[in-house]
């Protein structure tokens, strides 16, 4: 790894964390391509390694949002603790359905959520939420 790759990797890390803090994702969407492009990692190694960074993003993000009063601890822990159930379901489904069908169905779900969230963003709330004062 030369100095340029190192700088790029640090920048990707910062941007992924920023995105994660802003919208509540782990940042894998940037960590993974960052490691594939700048370190020439395989997809599997990049995805696996990104998990370490995602844990760090989650820890700092949940701590900060907790301090801001935006954390529902019980719901978050229930979703996290039950997620291995989903990993099992995913593994069963992956053996029954082609990878292309999985990709297209996940993309469809994401586009549906995007449409709903975009509508929500464009429609002004009927009653001003408590957080709107600084908006």
């Amino acid at each position, binding site marked *: 790894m030369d100095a340029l790759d*190192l700088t790029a*990797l*640090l920048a990707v*890390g910062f*941007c*992924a*964390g*920023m*995105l*994660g*803090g*802003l*919208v*509540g*994702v*782990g940042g*894998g969407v940037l960590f993974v391509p960052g*490691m594939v492009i700048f370190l020439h990692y395989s997809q*599997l190694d990049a995805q*696996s*390694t*990104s*998990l*370490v960074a*995602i*844990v*760090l*993003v*989650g*820890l*700092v*993000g*949940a701590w*900060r*949002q907790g301090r*801001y009063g*935006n954390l*529902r601890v019980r*719901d*978050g822990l229930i*979703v*996290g*603790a039950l*997620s291995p159930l*989903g990993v099992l379901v*995913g593994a069963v*489904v992956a053996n029954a359905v082609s990878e292309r069908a999985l*990709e297209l169905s*996940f*993309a469809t*779900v*994401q*586009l549906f*959520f*995007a449409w*709903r*969230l975009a509508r*929500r963003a*464009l429609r002004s709330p009927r009653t001003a939420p408590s*957080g709107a004062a600084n908006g």
Partner: protein
Amino acid sequence: MASRLPKLVAIATLGGAFSGLFGVGGGTIIVPLLILWFGYGEREATGTSLLAIIVIAALAAATQGAFGNVHLGTGLLIGIPAMAGVVAGTALQQRIPERAVSGIFAVLLVASAAVLIL
């Protein structure tokens, strides 16, 4: 709680399934469902998603680590600047209108879907 638990189980199952299948994607499922299905505000949804992600990613990291696929040093190298990024991102989020977070999330979802389709 009685009616909430099945929904939380569904969110956990979908989030876990997609993150297991695609390596990323837990948050892209959890945040929209908390907002659209549970009526969470955007800030609460993103904060709570990050808490769930700690558990999901830690379990997955332990599993992949056992298979020797995790480069710990690299994970820390990219993760430590990310910790500074999260502090900045969460601070910025408190200063923009809450609905704008939904708008940014919609753009992220379209980009992620495009990568999957192409």
